[in-house]
């Protein structure tokens, strides 16, 4: 199984989490994150990516996480295409011997994904479509990892 996937299809959170530690007696922790489409005034969301570059960017982010923490397995799935409120957008799962590495690597991968992987969101509302602006808070979240752990 590839560590990263960009796909239109939904994923099975339980199966993904189980696979992170299956047949691995050294795994003592699994941390995971699931990102969802928020509802409210957003009726639907369309996610665009840069085929090839996006997958490579995710592979590089996972490699950086492996350099920083003692992690065993990593899985990143990001959906593209049209998604409705409540639907899953992204899954990040990490297994490790001890919980700190899994927690930290999982958060690091999400923070870097949000600022470095080429995905773009367009929201559909009653007023029409609008491209989501990048958030400074996401840049700040990614930059805090550059000062150490």
């Amino acid at each position, binding site marked *: 199984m590839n560590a990263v996937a960009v796909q239109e299809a939904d994923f099975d959170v339980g199966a993904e989490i189980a696979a992170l530690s299956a047949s691995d007696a050294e795994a003592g922790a699994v941390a995971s994150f699931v990102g969802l489409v928020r509802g409210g005034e957003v009726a639907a969301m369309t996610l*665009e990516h*840069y085929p090839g570059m996006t997958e*490579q960017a995710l592979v590089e982010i996972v490699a950086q996480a492996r350099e920083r923490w003692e992690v065993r397995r990593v899985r990143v799935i990001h959906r593209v295409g049209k998604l409705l409120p409540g639907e899953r957008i992204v899954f990040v799962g990490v297994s490790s011997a001890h919980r700190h590495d899994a927690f930290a690597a999982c958060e690091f991968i999400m923070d870097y*994904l949000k600022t*470095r992987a*080429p995905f*773009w*969101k367009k929201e559909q509302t009653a007023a029409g479509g609008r491209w989501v602006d990048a958030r400074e808070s*996401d840049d700040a979240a990614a930059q805090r990892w550059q000062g150490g752990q």
Partner: protein
Amino acid sequence: MLKVLYFANLREAIGFGAESIELPAGVATVGELHAALGTRHAALLTAKNLRAAVNQKMCGLDAPIADGDEVAFFPPVTGG
């Protein structure tokens, strides 16, 4: 030839997401290509915080480009 790609709101403003062009005379960097293409695609010049990639690697405006490269222009990313 150069393959030039546009994404998200830039793709919509320009009207298409990819084109193949001859490397313009005197163009050796991403910034020079941006200025040259801007005469045909005004959205390139008005876009805020434009990002670029050469051969699928993020890069700055001073990054060199050569015949055969794939160059992409896009807004800041908003995934996750």
